């Protein structure tokens, strides 16, 4: 997968991997909300001890790494990318469990990929 750096330098590194169903779920989410902004791959704390990955509707910053997939723009801060590596996004819709599951090639915590999350606005 190609990564397009803002400055226009093209490098062959992967920042994101989408499992089947994930892109459609993101499209549906954005369409339902009438949002036309990029999706940021970010880290956050959801409480005691464990940081986790999350998806967030955001604007693109000059320093961001960006990639467009099927019409959706994904952005990630280079420092965050340095920290977590390639992020795999999947979407689950099971009884009592619905949302995005994010895993990274360099897990930021031992619970990487355990929980599910929504896209934060």
């Amino acid at each position: 997968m190609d990564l397009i750096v803002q400055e226009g330098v093209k490098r062959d590194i992967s920042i994101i991997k989408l499992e089947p169903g994930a892109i459609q779920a993101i499209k549906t989410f954005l369409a339902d909300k009438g949002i036309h902004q990029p999706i940021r791959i970010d880290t956050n704390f959801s409480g005691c001890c464990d940081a986790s990955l999350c998806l967030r509707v955001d604007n693109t910053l000059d320093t961001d790494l960006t990639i467009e997939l099927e019409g959706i723009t994904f952005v990630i801060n280079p420092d965050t990318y340095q920290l977590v590596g390639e992020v795999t996004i999947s979407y689950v819709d099971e009884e009592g469990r619905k949302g995005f599951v994010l895993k990274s090639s360099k897990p930021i915590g031992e619970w990487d990929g355990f929980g599910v999350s929504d896209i934060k606005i």
Partner: protein
Amino acid sequence: MEQYKLFINGEFVDAADGKTFETIDPGTEAPIATVAQAGKADAERAIAAARKAFDKGDWSGLTPSARIAKIQDFADQVAQQGLRLAATECMESGRTISYARYAPLLTIGLLRNLCLLAATKFPWEEEIPVSGNVFAPGREFIRREPIGVCVGIIPWNLPLEIAFWKIAPALIMGNTIVLKPASYTPLTALIAAEAAKAAGIPNGVINVIPGPGGELGKTLCTHPDVDKIAFTGSTEVGREIMRLASNTVKKVTLELGGKSANIILDDADMELAVEGAVFGTFLHQGQLCESGTRVLVSSKIYDEFLDKMKKRAESLRIGYQMDPTSHMGPLISKQQLATVEGYVKLGKEEGAELITGGKRVEVSGINGGFYYAPTIFANVNNKMRIAQEEIFGPVACVIKFDSDEEAVAIANDSIYGLGGGVFSTNTARAERMARGVRTGTMWINNYHVLADFCPFGGYKQSGVGREFGLAGLHEYTQVKRIHVVAIADHKTNMSFQLMSDYKKIDGFSYNCPTTVIAGHGALSAIYKAIADLGCRRALILTDPGVRKAGLAQLVKDALVDFCVGIYDNIPSDPDLETVDAATTVARELEADCIVSVGGGSVIDTAKGVCVTLKNGGKANDHLNMLVLTEPQTPHIAIPTTAGTGSEVTNVAVLTSKSAGRKLFIVDTKIMPNVAILDPRFTMSLPKDMTVSTAMDAMTHAIEAMTSTMANPICDGMALQAIRLINENLPLVVADGKNEKARLNLQLAATMAGWAFTIAQVGLAHGMAHTVGTLHHVPHGAACGIVLPKVMRYNADHANDKLAQVAQVMGVNIHGMTERDAALAAADAVEDLMKKVGHPMRLRDVGVTEENLAICAFHAIADTAVLFNGRPVSDPNEVLQIYTQCY
């Protein structure tokens, strides 16, 4: 480098797949130890060991006091490992040694304190003296029993102590545990396992399996042999654990994130508040869930406070955690460091003012480590992400407020509710603030203080359940109710009879403790009676008529100095307000005894007063059945009629205006202590009232014999009452001054009261209640009119009893069939009524024919009808009886 293994079923073992991982010192980034990494197979092995150990019962089956000895041995072994534990805790978690050195001491204290609490104060078994189900008497108690196999999942910030927050209550309460320490900090839990093994904790009771939560979590949270999960960690993971656990309905306790508010009021001791804010935010580099990372400061002192807090934060020494002079050590990992940096960057982007910190720190002489400066953001808006999300690092968000109310509102504007503080020199004001914040713990002029006997846990998304104290111990037990039926006989079980054609209740409990003092001049006995009750301040309750007749004054004189007043504002058919008004007077006069002088209305009011006086509140609070567990305010009853029997019964009938009907207090504890039957008190009763009240007593007696609850003791009382009424009522009607006959009617009413208070009444009472309520027919007159017809209705279901009634009423039943004798009893009652001039028809007492049908519908719903000897379920049958009576 040291090597650590998994601890499963009492043995230290390698992971099934041989995997290992390294732990590192966050202060140097140097590896500390190699640790076996548990996988799914190891988790299953550990769960199986814990299950087997629990089911075997050699831990769960011990008595609490027997478990104490083992826990104390465990605590001793932890003490022996104290130095190693403190050093390891410090090295692997980055906790400064000056802080970590307390960890073993606190852990030992927790073990010892909780096991003593469990053995001495925990309600393992608890009697329920009142079950709340009046139809199923018996002993009710609860046992608290261990839940089973617990999984403890702990974080990396305080790995030793939080491990024991799970291990201690789980084991002390008789459970077994599988502990999964955080992958950053697995060592102290494994050292704890060594201590457990050395202490002789049985194999399988404790199991420790370090490994990645993402891989082990699903197995631990879904395995059918796991009964409970106790987790400390993030809200996102906690939410998923709760979801996974729900599939097999496991018990869950969660201690999750926080974004606690530390409120600095304008009257706070400035130096104390600054220290409190610095300590509350920066202890352990801010990596504590309850940290007060939102510092809410009054606008009146904002600038001064901020300046001082900045200076104090900048004075903190950041250094290697093993250096005893360090105030702050490293963060746990490079990921943690990067995430904190990300939030600081975000704070600046959001417009908060960074006044100090916001940068990594290099520690002299160390190459590496994850050190970060204590950071303060000023002018933070509570809506900013840095104020809403837990950063879990040394970052304070200072927020200005203008009023106490605003401070509470800001504090509550969070998805979390774990901790919080208030600094003020006005404790009352601080406590008002503390009450307003929706959070699990509030400290006043202090912070971060946890304690073994004090519960800790979160409101809102900060968690479920509590740790520490009795509340924490309860989380590791489940409640079993045990009901032991009072009389083990299927013909006494009212519930079973719902599916049986046998409706009689054979077994019974007879408890009528009222002392009866009877005879001419019996009133004088009240002086000794009140002294025997230990009372000195009797309030006489009566009605205006009785008072006017001089009877209340007689009683007052008999009480000599033991009477504090006479209250006579009691009407017929008293309501709850009547009781409340009389209770108010009793409270004002500090009465310690109630003496009722009157008929059923007065005595029933007095019963209500005694209950309300004893238990507080209003009469409406006490309209219950069989819920009283203690003796009530002493009550001496002096009846001035001979009918209700209220002087010895367990019921008070009181009108509720809001309910629009008569309601009851029914309880053995409201039976008067003493009943004084002095015939002088009924001598002036008019003839019609004498007759109707006597027929009330007659109805009590006959229905007590024919009810489903009838029993031989009550039958004996009832038969004697019937005989006395039959013989003496005509004498009193002929000569109202016949004192002996008057006394016999009093005794009859009392005995009939004893009979029906145990055996209940039946359809005649249900019908009489109805015409009394709808047509204001005097109760005794209504009872008399319907009684013979109901006796005939009941005949085939109570021939034997009614035949005995016939006999005591003087009917020669020789040669009669039992049924004919029963019917003759009804005839005898009618003959008596005619002889004494009792009204014979409902039309004679103001009932209209067109209302009979509605009366039938009301009557069938009356509680008394439930106990009628012949089951009553058809309103048409009741209408037929009403029609016969009409």
